């Protein structure tokens, strides 16, 4: 695979992850557990969609369709998001746990991309690193709060962790194109990313009185990066593209 195709594959999975988790987290809008949290969580969901738009713009520069077309006209099998981000929001415990596991990975991914040899991507990574840092501060604070809250809140967080864990490992699905990206210093590769992620999330989970599932039970849920998705993605896309489908030129 040539380096342009490899780069496109990388950009698609980053942008699709952000778009889909952005849409999912926006489902909490108006339903958050308290006013301030409602605003914060919705605001971060907007951030994620904004980040994805910038990555889709990079793809447009590489010859792909424009951001709206790419975001709103594909069906589930054409999406490269990990299955973690498409799962329903569940309770706030699951949404916070996924937010923690996902944004820790985003933090490390973007930290590495800041020095990517592909300059346009490095610039986007530098621009949005602060936003992503806040997202991890938000996630870490909630994780700590609920992990230490009481038996019920700790129990719910542990259940959510157990459920989300193998999906989270699925974020680091190896891609066929990685070697050329690693060789050209564009991206550090999913295996290196996962290793750094593990070193980041493990102590934070432990400090929140949560137990990382035992390695014997690890079974990463792959497939998302090559278009294999859960039953939850297509209905999400249908809802997300409702306005666009009625009027592709609508401005809102």
């Amino acid at each position, binding site marked *: 695979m040539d380096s342009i195709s490899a780069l496109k594959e990388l950009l698609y999975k980053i942008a699709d992850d952000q778009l889909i988790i952005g849409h999912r987290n926006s489902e909490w809008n108006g339903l958050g557990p*308290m*006013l*301030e*949290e409602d*605003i*914060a969580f919705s*605001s971060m969901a907007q951030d994620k969609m904004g980040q994805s738009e910038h990555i889709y713009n990079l793809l447009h520069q590489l010859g792909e369709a424009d951001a709206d077309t790419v975001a709103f006209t594909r069906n589930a099998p054409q999406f490269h998001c990990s299955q973690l981000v498409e799962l329903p929001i569940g309770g706030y415990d699951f949404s916070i746990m996924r937010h923690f596991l996902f944004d820790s990975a985003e933090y490390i991914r973007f930290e590495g991309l800041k020095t990517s040899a592909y300059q346009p991507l490095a610039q986007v990574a530098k621009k949005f690193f602060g936003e992503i840092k*806040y997202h991890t*501060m*938000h996630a870490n*604070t*909630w994780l*700590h*709060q609920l992990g230490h809250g009481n038996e019920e809140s700790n129990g719910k967080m542990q259940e959510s962790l157990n459920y989300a864990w193998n999906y989270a490992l699925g974020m680091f699905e190896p891609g066929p194109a990685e070697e050329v990206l690693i060789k050209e210093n564009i991206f550090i590769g999913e295996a290196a990313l996962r290793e750094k992620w593990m070193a980041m999330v493990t102590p934070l989970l432990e400090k929140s009185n949560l137990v990382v599932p035992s390695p014997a039970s690890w079974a990463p849920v792959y497939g998302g990066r090559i278009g294999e998705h859960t039953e939850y993605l297509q209905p999400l896309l249908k809802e997300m593209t409702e306005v666009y489908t009625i009027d592709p030129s609508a401005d809102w």
Partner: protein
Amino acid sequence: MSTEDNKTIISLDPRISRSNLTGGNHSDVDGLIHFQTYEVFHQSKRGAQHKHVGIVHAPNPDMALLYAKEQYARREVTANIWVAPSSCISATEYEDDDVFTTAPEKLYRNPASYKVMDRIQAFKERGMKASDEV
């Protein structure tokens, strides 16, 4: 909050008040359900003074900072944010506001009352250094 108040305020959360829940106890307006408030101070650039901009509800200072960032710094240029528990603020009593009554009349305390511009101008014209005697 007195018992009488509890009869009229179902909850400080408007979503609970609107939903007309029956049964159960929704009148708990103290600590566990309703967080304390934190006063938020916003600084627009390093070295500038922090200005009071409002409050957030939060269970602890860490979460208050998270929310202060989103409520009060998601549009404007920001260098730094402080939060402090509202309970830490000491305030004058409004019934004693007569202590301030005559303050606006004391124009001699206003810097505009000091007639120094002609001396500053003369200083500049002579091109003197600060150490020189005027």
